[in-house]
């Protein structure tokens, strides 16, 4: 695997292999915070054209745990604002000897352009592009589900029913997960307000919860869409679509996932966020392990002669 741009490029077997690696790494991370020399001498850039502190520090720590040199290209404060285009940025980082570029961009397809235009020889990892994809998020969610269900390494998520709730249409997290979880054999169901969910999904959360999901995945409400015609108000959204205490109690055995940062009291109640079934912190831990596995996988065998 040279780049990781989309979950679409991952076959089931390859996905399970990546999850197995990440699972092993997460066990090592549990034991101690020590570093591994795997990526010694490699230079990794994080390029975030859109703010995301959590994803950036997760990738940054992953690269550092593998002994790579990590440089933060603070895209907002940089030449981008002076008008530099993506190609020039790519070529500048190439000239500095970049081995991997971890990229977050507000436009869908940005990571693909970066990887497929002969601008750079670096491996590109998509850390979220517009409404398109966020593959490492889907991988870390899949790993958290597998651990939460006590499914052993080497296996998928066959026959598990996962309900994704919220702004399905505008969410790269939902898009990546729907694809990846289905490949792993899970049954993926979506629910969200009519303006946010495909017609095949549920338009009423209480009805959706009656399908007895094995896990629910809450999506963050993007505040920038609030008070626009699509969502009239916070309170209405919380009432209709929030995972309240009552709703969480109606599915006592289901795992609860949220990609963070959470809007408590809006899409998720404090009760749900802190319940025994909440995987939120597990997801953060697994994010680190998955990104370590992805980095060593895209950088492995790059200069292979055979």
């Amino acid at each position, binding site marked *: 695997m040279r780049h990781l741009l989309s979950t679409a490029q991952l076959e089931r077997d390859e996905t399970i292999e990546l999850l197995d690696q990440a699972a092993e790494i997460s066990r090592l991370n549990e034991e101690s915070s*020590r570093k591994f020399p*795997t990526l010694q001498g490699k230079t990794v850039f994080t390029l975030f054209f859109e703010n995301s502190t959590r994803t950036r520090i997760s990738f940054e720590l992953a690269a550092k745990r593998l002994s790579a040199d990590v440089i933060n290209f603070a895209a907002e404060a940089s030449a981008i604002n002076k008008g530099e285009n993506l190609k020039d940025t790519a070529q500048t980082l190439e000239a500095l000897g970049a081995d991997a570029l971890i990229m977050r961009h507000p436009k869908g397809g940005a990571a693909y352009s970066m990887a497929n235009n002969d601008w750079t020889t670096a491996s590109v990892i998509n850390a979220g592009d517009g409404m398109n994809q966020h593959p490492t998020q889907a991988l870390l969610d899949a790993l958290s589900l597998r651990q939460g269900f006590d499914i052993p390494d080497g296996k998928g998520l066959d026959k598990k029913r996962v309900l994704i709730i919220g702004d399905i249409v505008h969410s790269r997290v939902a898009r990546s997960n729907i694809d990846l979880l289905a490949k792993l054999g899970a049954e993926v169901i979506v629910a969200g307000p009519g303006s946010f969910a495909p017609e095949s999904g549920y338009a009423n959360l209480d009805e959706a919860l009656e399908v007895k999901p094995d896990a629910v995945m809450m999506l963050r409400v993007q505040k920038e869409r609030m008070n626009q015609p699509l969502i009239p108000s916070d309170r209405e959204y919380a009432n209709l679509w929030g995972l309240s205490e009552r709703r969480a109690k109606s599915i006592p055995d289901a795992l609860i996932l949220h990609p963070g940062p959470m809007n408590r009291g809006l899409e998720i109640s404090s009760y749900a966020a802190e319940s025994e079934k909440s995987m939120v912190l597990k997801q953060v831990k697994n994010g680190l392990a998955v990104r370590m596995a992805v980095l060593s996988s895209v950088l492995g*065998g790059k200069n292979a002669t055979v």
Partner: protein
Amino acid sequence: MKTVMSEEDIKRTSRRMAHEILERNSEPFLLLGIPTRGVSLAQFIQQNLDEIAPGNSELGQLDIGLFRDDLDTRPAKAISETVIPGNVDGRLVVLVDDVLFSGRTIRAALDALSSFGRPAEVQLAVLVDRGHRQLPIRADYVGKNIPTSLTEKVQVKTMDIDGENSVVIE
């Protein structure tokens, strides 16, 4: 393809290696197999140790996937489990691998080991030493020395992974 060690040979050899390890060390030790087949061999040796001197050794395994120095030229290999009973600080550790070749696996294993702590002493046991070292590393216990050319492939097969116990040269 030529079989150079049969199941019977491997049995006898691992028994001899168990005796040699005990002969040289009076204190209890930790036997760490290097995945994948080093782990199976460590099990063979441990079975013998359990018969000869029960309770004198503990068995574990040490993965080196994240410690290799050839990531550039070979795709990342699957990472296996590392199991270390207790810790390694101040203990005698005997590393076990199937084939000793360039010595790079053992270098990586030494790095991996030192990331867990500081053993009192580290020794190395291998079933086959095929020569062509690229680093100043030698084994303390060798099952069989097999001189090879660089183009040949030495393959140790074990029951749990390959369905048979043997050593072949291609």
